[in-house]
């Protein structure tokens, strides 16, 4: 039976079919749906881990003890998990372990576009790259076989287009794999220097064998067509090449580390002009050049962003293509009209909105973090100075204070979400206490991991499967690490929020302000919409500083879009003239 699946659904299905026992992850676009789907199969244990490092550690425990494990994360998550990864490459795994790295060329939803094939090479583990959903499932299963055959963790690298595109997948039954024997083996699994040295020798020997495997494995495939042009490609780019240049010969690489030297040399000898088309880094190209193979790549194609079919058409289509594309229908509309961009915005009723209104009003320096609240950097709030990575807000605030002094810190706050705080904010907070900073940390507790689509987390008392569990007591946690000033506030109460922020900024010690209110998209029963009493509105536009998508300016006054408004009342609380209320006709 064939089913239309996203790449992420197909990976979860592949893990299930491969008899996987344990699936772990920290949510991150474009990887999140892998583990959400994995959790729907009752035969597999699944969890949201507090961060990617823990996810990989749980996965490696499962694998070393004999159960197959799938660990999924976005590309930047691998930075967090890199510590266990590099040493796991030395110990090997016993039962199969597959690490999914979901990269995001083009940065649809990320802070950078690093190319994680480099991690595969640096850790000396194989990297597989599926090009559609059918391959996402197949390669997941092959990755487990490969992992066990070579006793190595395997990286399955996807990109946003593979992860989030849907295509037809042939479904197969689950293969029940019995637990492998677990035997204590100190020399193999305790990586102190004396035991690690021989393991490094084993890693290099394994890599040699993997190179041999790459030459003949089914993952790599030479497709000879017209010999004038030969293209080496992997992942989604292979599909684009087939579309744009159907007559070109292709070497499709399903395994991009280690590379099959003989196969590539054979292909190079068969074609007149050889190109590597790969997104981001010249990962394949550099290796070919090191082997002395004459090849085009980044001299023609960009290092930055996605390589979409239209770029391949533009670069090679006129020389080698069929030129089947009809002329474009219109010139880009942008040439004639200024088309306003439509950036994502904080939703109507978002509990973050009031905070950024106040931070802007107080003109504070704000070190920010990763989550929906990063939108606080945009107009009209502009209330964020830095966003680097998960958890960086607190360390950055400490560093600013240590460089510029306590006076500067009186106008400085760190802003971080609940899930991000658990991920890697707590260590920064410990640093603030331990090293005597006066940092004011604002934790936005909206009871969920919102931006990736509402995943449960250790602060909301629910597991990935929705079961009740203990929840972390955030105020107690802050107190336990030595923060004496911990205060909770409802971010819809702007007056109280402003007073508390001023008071904690003035304190000569670290403080934690917990803004607690559930994400607006989780609130089941929205309140009655607000409306503007036209004769009372003086057109001061103060409410528009909230950046609410429901408030529209019409003829020098404001109006509220009643179909979107959830009645959070923030606009009423900033209106100086009492012109916004809830009674009467809400649709005017």
């Amino acid at each position, binding site marked *: 039976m*064939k089913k*239309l699946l996203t790449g992420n659904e197909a990976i979860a299905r592949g893990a299930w079919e491969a008899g996987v026992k344990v699936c772990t992850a920290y949510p991150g*676009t474009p990887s999140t749906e892998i583990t959400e789907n994995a959790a729907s199969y009752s035969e597999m244990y699944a969890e949201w881990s507090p961060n990617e490092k823990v996810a990989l550690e749980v996965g490696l425990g499962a694998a070393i003890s004999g159960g197959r494990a799938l660990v999924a994360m976005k590309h930047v998550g691998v930075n967090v998990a890199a510590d266990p990864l590099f040493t796991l490459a030395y110990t090997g795994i016993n039962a199969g372990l597959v690490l999914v790295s979901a990269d995001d060329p083009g940065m*649809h*939803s990320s802070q950078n576009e690093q190319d994680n094939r480099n991690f595969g090479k640096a850790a000396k583990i194989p990297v597989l790259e599926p090009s*559609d959903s059918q391959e996402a499932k197949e390669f997941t299963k092959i990755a487990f076989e490969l992992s066990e055959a070579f006793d190595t963790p395997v990286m399955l690298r996807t990109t*946003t*287009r593979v992860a*989030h*595109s*849907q*295509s*037809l997948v042939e479904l197969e039954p689950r293969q029940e794999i019995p637990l492998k024997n677990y035997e204590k083996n100190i020399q193999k699994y305790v990586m102190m220097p004396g035991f690690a040295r021989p393991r490094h020798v084993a890693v290099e020997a394994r890599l040699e064998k993997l190179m041999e495997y790459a030459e003949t494995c089914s993952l790599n495939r030479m497709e000879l067509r017209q010999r004038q042009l030969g293209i080496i490609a992997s992942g*989604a780019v292979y*599909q*684009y090449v*087939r*579309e*744009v240049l159907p007559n070109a010969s292709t070497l499709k690489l399903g395994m991009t580390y280690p590379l099959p030297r003989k196969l590539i040399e054979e292909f190079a000898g068969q074609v007149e002009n050889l190109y590597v088309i790969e997104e981001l880094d010249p990962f394949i190209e550099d290796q070919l050049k090191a082997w002395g193979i004459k090849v085009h790549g980044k001299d023609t194609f960009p290092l930055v962003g996605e390589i*979409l*079919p*239209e770029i391949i*058409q533009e670069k090679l289509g006129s020389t080698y293509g069929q030129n089947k*594309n*009809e*002329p*474009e*229908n*219109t*010139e*880009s*509309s942008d040439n*004639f*009209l*200024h*088309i*306003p*961009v*439509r*950036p*994502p*915005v*904080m*939703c109507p009723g978002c509990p973050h909105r009031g905070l950024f209104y106040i931070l802007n009003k107080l003109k504070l320096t704000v070190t920010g973090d990763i989550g*929906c609240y990063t*939108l606080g950097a*945009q*107009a*009209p709030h502009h209330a964020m100075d830095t966003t680097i990575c998960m958890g960086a807000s607190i360390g950055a605030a400490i560093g600013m204070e240590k460089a510029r002094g306590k006076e500067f810190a009186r106008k400085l706050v760190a802003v971080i979400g609940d899930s991000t705080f658990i991920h890697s904010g707590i260590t920064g907070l410990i640093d603030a206490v331990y090293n005597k900073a006066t940092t004011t940390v604002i934790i936005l507790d909206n009871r969920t991991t919102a*931006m*990736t*689509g509402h995943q449960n987390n250790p602060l909301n008392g629910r597991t990935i499967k929705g079961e009740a569990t203990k929840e972390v007591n955030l105020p107690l946690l802050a107190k336990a690490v030595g923060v004496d000033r911990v205060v909770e506030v409802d971010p819809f109460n702007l007056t109280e929020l402003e007073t508390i922020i001023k008071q904690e900024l003035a304190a000569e010690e670290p403080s934690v302000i917990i803004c607690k209110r559930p994400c607006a*998209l989780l609130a089941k029963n929205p309140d009655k919409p607000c409306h503007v009493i036209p004769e009372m509105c003086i057109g001061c536009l103060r409410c*528009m500083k909230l*950046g609410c*998508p429901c*408030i*529209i*300016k019409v003829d020098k006054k404001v109006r509220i879009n009643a*179909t979107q408004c959830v009645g959070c009342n923030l606009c009423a609380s900033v209106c100086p003239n009492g012109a916004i209320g809830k009674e009467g006709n809400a649709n005017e």
Partner: protein
Amino acid sequence: MPMNETKNILIVGVGGQGTILASRVLSTVLQKIGLDVKVSEIHGMSQRGGSVVTQVRYGQSVSSPIIPKGQADIILAFEKLEALRWLPTLKKEGIILINDQRIDPMPVIIGAAEYPEALDYIRSKVKNVLVINALAAAQEAGNAKAVNIVLLGLLARHMNIDHSLWLETIEETVPAKFLQVNLKAFEAGYNTAENIANI
């Protein structure tokens, strides 16, 4: 429908408008008639009111999930500005179906940009334009949230696929308690008085 070539449908709108459900029904219907289907959907922050785009491609065998510029046979636009933004993707003889709804993006809300006269411009550039008020039709069907299914009905009218297959797929996709409203909404879109010749 000659199926040797790949056909392309682009669905565009604003996060929260329900484009994803509409594309799910569409792709399931295409799969049921035995075609190869690929769908590309960029999401992530799309729930927060940003632009959302779904690309649906179908035929005997489809490679890339991405519609090249100027190759969309039909654009189904849930919002006027988004219709304008994606117009360059439309084929010369393609059809653009537009919901007559304006959702101001943040630059317009804060006065940094003007909301353009999208419909006038689109009509001046392409022949096959159809604009409907899907919100009114959805309200008439019983739920303002069924705008997406009204628009799906409008799209179905312009595709040569058995009517009952759409109904059957909607029934399998939407929760039972919303089924009647959605079926009514689908018919409202399907039976829109005006239409453009079938492709």
